[in-house]
């Protein structure tokens, strides 16, 4: 390297070693500079590629790789066109417990054994598991001992499967007119046919849990409600005079279009309302009406607990006769929509989807998460877009509401069980129906209210004050019921066998 003769470089004839070193340093510097430029260029190209990707994402193309229509139930097919939504939809298989609920199928009867007693004589006393995510709704229904050990009607399938195409098929088979214009008639007819079937028969007609078609129209992806029991229920609500500040389209319809036609959410409701109504197709209180077990949402007097009760009293509906007390009692289902309707979020125009299916970003794309779940598992996306408070604080606030509701629930359970014990005792001691009538009626009222909040899946969060009001009433009615058992009506001492001679003062027989 240093063997160059002194005269090799004419520009530096005598400085062999210093000049050679300088040259070498320059060469190294140039080489280093070149390497740096290479790295920098590489980085710039990476950035460029990143920007290209983001820009491409922002255009939000939908590639229609499969044709979808109103008969496409299989969500996998929809997933080919809408892969992002499908990805999150599939994650409803996740099983996570929250403090008071979640999506793990724990046995509520073991967690809160009082409910065995409250449900005595009813299938729920045998199996009452917490429901899992959407992905399991059909499987859970097929597995529950309420179905495997008891005869259930086809009505259950209304909300435990993606059922609309099956309804349409059954409706056409039963004589409903063909063609797209008659879709609602076909569904209605099929619904009537399938409700009247045994559950095991109806279950053969369906194959998927809730699917894309249950909330979306295939051609436009618009939100759409199709379930006949919901349409009937919401129309009955619209025809009532009950104020619906959280559903302005109903109030508008009452003012403007009443004479013309029924309220139709698919025509009248705003998109924001639809983001709740699609959920209200199933997350509601219901009962099976008449011989044909038609699923019916009891909303014609309003959505509040006592309005629904008044409806049930009017039609004389009884879910079962309590095995211990003989009271004709009601079972609340999962009145999420009803309780939410009484809450501040509904009143402020916040929909179900805003919290349970919040918008999430994937690169530059914004999609509504189809991983429907508890907002407590996703506080940042679900709550913080409105509530600019640290996540921990939001979670603490929500849990405070739920803890308080849970405390009231435990007290309510105690009160109702206490009434059941007293009633059963009085009955065993020979009190007759007339003497127990008032108290049984109060059991029905107390138990209905307690169950309304207990079966509802937010532990009071959807409407905290309303939940507390309902539970206060439950406790009050239960204690009133205890007072209403007239000790004088129980005239036979426990040990006596001679009940026939029991004399009751006529004044007690109201």
């Amino acid at each position, binding site marked *: 390297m240093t063997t160059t003769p002194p005269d090799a470089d004419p520009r530096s004839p005598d400085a062999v070693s210093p000049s050679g070193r300088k040259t070498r340093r320059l060469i190294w510097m*140039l080489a280093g500079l070149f390497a740096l430029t*290479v790295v920098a260029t590489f980085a710039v190209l990476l950035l460029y590629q990143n920007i290209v990707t983001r820009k491409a994402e922002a255009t939000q193309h939908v590639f229609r790789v499969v044709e979808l229509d109103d008969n496409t139930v299989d969500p996998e097919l929809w997933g080919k066109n809408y892969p992002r939504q499908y990805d999150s939809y599939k994650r409803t298989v996740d099983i996570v417990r929250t403090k008071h609920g979640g999506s793990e199928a724990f046995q509520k009867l073991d967690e809160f054994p009082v409910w065995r007693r409250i449900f005595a004589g009813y299938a729920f006393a045998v199996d009452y598991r917490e429901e899992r995510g959407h992905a399991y709704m059909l499987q859970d229904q097929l597995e529950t001992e309420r179905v495997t050990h008891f005869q259930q009607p086809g009505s259950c399938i209304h909300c435990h499967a993606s059922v609309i195409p099956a309804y349409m098929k059954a409706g056409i088979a039963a004589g409903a007119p063909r063609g797209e214009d008659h879709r609602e008639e076909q569904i209605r007819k099929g619904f009537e046919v399938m409700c009247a079937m045994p559950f095991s028969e109806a279950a053969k007609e369906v194959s998927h849990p809730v699917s894309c078609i249950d909330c979306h129209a295939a051609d436009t992806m618009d939100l759409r409600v199709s379930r006949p029991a919901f349409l009937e229920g919401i129309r009955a609500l619209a025809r009532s005079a009950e104020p619906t500040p959280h559903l302005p389209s109903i109030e508008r319809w009452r003012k403007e279009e009443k004479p013309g036609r029924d309220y139709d959410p698919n025509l009248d409701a705003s998109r924001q309302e639809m983001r709740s109504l699609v959920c209200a197709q199933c997350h509601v209180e219901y009962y099976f009406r008449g011989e044909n077990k038609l699923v019916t949402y009891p909303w014609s007097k309003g959505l509040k607990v006592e309005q629904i009760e008044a409806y049930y009293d009017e039609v004389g509906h009884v879910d079962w006769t309590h095995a211990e007390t003989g009271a004709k009692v009601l079972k609340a289902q999962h009145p999420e929509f009803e309780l939410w309707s009484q809450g501040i979020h509904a009143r402020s125009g916040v929909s179900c989807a805003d919290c349970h299916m919040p918008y999430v970003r994937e690169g530059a794309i914004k999609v509504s998460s189809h991983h429907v779940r508890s907002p407590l598992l996703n506080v940042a996306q679900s709550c913080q877009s409105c509530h600019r408070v640290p996540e921990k604080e939001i979670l603490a606030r929500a849990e405070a509401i739920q803890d308080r509701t849970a405390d009231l629930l435990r007290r309510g359970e105690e009160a109702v069980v206490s009434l059941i014990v007293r009633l059963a005792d009085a009955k065993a001691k020979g009190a007759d129906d007339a003497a127990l009538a008032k108290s049984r009626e109060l059991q029905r009222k107390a138990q209905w209210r307690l169950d309304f909040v207990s079966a509802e899946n937010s532990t009071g969060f959807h409407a905290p004050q309303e939940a507390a009001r309902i539970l206060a009433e439950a406790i009050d009615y239960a204690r009133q019921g205890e007072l209403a058992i007239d000790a004088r009506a129980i005239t036979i001492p426990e040990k006596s066998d001679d009940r026939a001679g029991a004399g009751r003062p006529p004044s007690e027989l109201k």
Partner: protein
Amino acid sequence: MKLPRPSLRVVLIVLVVWAAGVLGGLGAYTFHYAEGLSYFSNDPKACVNCHIMREQYDGWLKSPHHAVATCNDCHTPHAFIPKYLSKAENGFWHSKGFTLQDFHEPIMIRRHNSAVLQKNCVDCHSNLLEGLNPHAGDARRMLDCVHCHREVGHGPMK
């Protein structure tokens, strides 16, 4: 024997100059493709280039201040040098966040940007605020106008 050393130097110099040119060109094109110049403007559209602030932009379109103030009027200092320093600082964090996708969702204003915002409220509404001392810029004692008037910039919250 006369050629190698100078020629290696020359070759290297040419190579470095060429590489620098390529870097410059690619950089300039990337800058152009990323609409880099738009960030020096006052056009609110520049703020939705990356779509993250689409809601904020949409809200502003329908807000009471739409006619009188753009993004920069409220969110960057009004003096020239602090304004571009603020743009540079925020621009860096925004680019980093968007490129690496590691930012908090939903996005929230940072404390010192809140102070900038507050100063700007006072700057325009000084007549109205005479006699009041909202401590603009003092993050600890600041009375935050938008705490109550949160709808002025981005329209009503849902």
